[in-house]
């Protein structure tokens, strides 16, 4: 009996507030937009009994999804989000790897402090960390002031409200997610392997390329997914740093819902985003599981 309560309370909570809401999103994505409250039709009227259910299914169609393929705004937004997420993940890896690598080279008693310094920004508000860049990248921001003062440029550069600003924002906010798994992979690396490689005549670079890099692969994969997956549906960064020129699907969904009040289209956008995300999520879970099995 006690076991039943223990299982059923969190189970029921997640069913009611996680799974059922998804069913509703799928349902509304199949409905049509109307000017009414709520702004979609048909609505499922359970009070109508079986007749109500039949009527509902007769009114359901894939019109909204057809609309999404006919207007090129949507597929451009999906492609542009994918492109931004891939490039940003690659840059974050290039920036994060040397930091994680450097962290394993300092004296062991300093490592916990460095680790805390990497984690600390994660606890600080995401919104504030993105906002901090608005004052740095703007027309009269610090970067432009510094470059003008140095005489490198004579006209302020436009960085804010361009894709460049979005990349900077993503790399900055997601960097800890990349550093931590790579660091923990590199920490476990057995030093004698590196010594063996050097004894056998490898240069430092070949040692790195043949030993260190492959052995940190799990960390690289985990870190890349941890950056790629949330970036794909990102809203705050493109909205504050990207301006109107940067097209990302999270922003499109937000605007469809809050500005256009088009619930079926917003829901259909969400359903497709989820379908795109399922593949990387499954790959990520499989990588984690493989790692757990290798350790256990």
């Amino acid at each position, binding site marked *: 009996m*006690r076991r039943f309560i*223990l*299982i059923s309370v*969190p189970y029921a*909570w*997640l069913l009611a*507030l*996680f*799974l*059922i*809401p*998804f069913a*509703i*999103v799928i349902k*509304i994505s199949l409905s049509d937009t109307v000017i009414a409250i709520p702004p979609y039709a048909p609505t499922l009227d359970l009070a109508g009994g079986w007749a109500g259910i039949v009527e509902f299914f007769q009114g359901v169609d894939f019109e909204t999804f057809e609309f999404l393929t006919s207007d090129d705004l949507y597929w451009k937004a999906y492609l542009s989000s994918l492109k931004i997420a891939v490039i940003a993940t690659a840059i974050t890896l290039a920036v*994060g790897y*040397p930091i994680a690598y450097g962290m394993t080279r*300092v004296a062991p008693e300093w490592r916990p402090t*460095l680790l*805390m*310094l*990497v*984690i*600390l*920004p994660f*606890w*600080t*508000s995401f*919104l*504030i*960390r993105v*906002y*901090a860049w*608005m*004052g*740095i990248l*703007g027309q009269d*921001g*610090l970067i432009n002031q510094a470059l003008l003062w140095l005489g490198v440029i004579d006209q302020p550069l436009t960085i804010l409200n361009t894709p460049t600003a979005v990349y900077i924002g993503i790399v*900055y906010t997601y*960097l*800890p997610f990349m550093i931590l798994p790579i660091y923990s992979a590199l920490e476990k690396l057995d*030093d004698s392997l*590196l*010594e063996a490689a050097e004894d056998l005549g490898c240069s430092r670079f070949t040692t790195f390329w043949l030993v260190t890099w492959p052995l940190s692969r799990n960390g690289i994969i985990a870190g890349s997914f941890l950056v790629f*997956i949330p970036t794909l*549906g*990102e*809203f*705050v960064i493109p909205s*504050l740093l990207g301006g109107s020129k940067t097209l990302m699907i*999270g922003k499109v*969904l937000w605007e469809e*819902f*809050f500005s256009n009040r088009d619930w079926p289209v917003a*829901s259909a956008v*969400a359903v497709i*985003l989820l379908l795109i995300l399922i593949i990387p*999520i499954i790959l990520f*879970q499989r990588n984690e599981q493989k790692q757990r099995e290798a350790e256990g």
Partner: protein
Amino acid sequence: MRRLSWFNATSLSLGFAFLYLPMIILIIYSFNASKLVTVWAGFSTKWYGELFRNEAFLDAAWVTIRVAVMSSTLATILGTMAAYVLVRAGQFYGRTLFSGMIYAPLVMPEVITGLSLLLLFIGIGLDRGVVTIVLAHTTFSMCYVSVVVSSRLVTFDRSLEEAAQDLGCTPMESFRLVTLPIIAPAVLSGWLLAFTLSLDDLVIASFASGPSSTTLPIKIYSAVRLGVSPEINALSTIMIGIVTVGVVTASIMTKRAAVKQMRDEQAAERAGE
């Protein structure tokens, strides 16, 4: 063998400068006397004064704190239960679905979670306000809590619980007297994580909130969309300060607890010899 080369030192200093300089600049400019955030006009704390006279911000801060306390407490209870189920309950009907529902919200884009919860609240006719934000925040943060707590439960020596029950404890007593004290640090850090996630959340709160229940991130977002403002810098500085003090204190406390536990174990071993 593991030496710090000039390359390692450079990448570390550049990396940490990149992580910390934007926030340091933000803090410095919160003490700027000028309304123009980009021109330095001398040291001043007037924006902090303005902030504490701004009723809208104070109201939003109060809503945010209430939501964070309620949702993180609920999330800690539900998340600890979920972790216990995942690690200890063994097989039961729908276990795969259950663990899927625990891990899925961790990677779900916030816009989707927010949209789906809003459609649910409208569907069942629940007025949007503090209650709906608490429900929404509890749902995603209980998953984080359960991940943190279950990672502690996995390493937990189960024979301790069995010993307690052999000595006559009921399962409830052995949980309260043995299990809970051991997993307490994980439960506490789960609560802290849930609390900061709730304080920080903009997207899900925007979907779940009504006109009368604006949280601080929603307020900050609508203010910064119009551009950089010294008042927001001051507010950000206060929030960064609170988080820094909290995280540093928590990590010192866990370190002390670990040292104490190690000493206790050593003492117990010596007593056993």
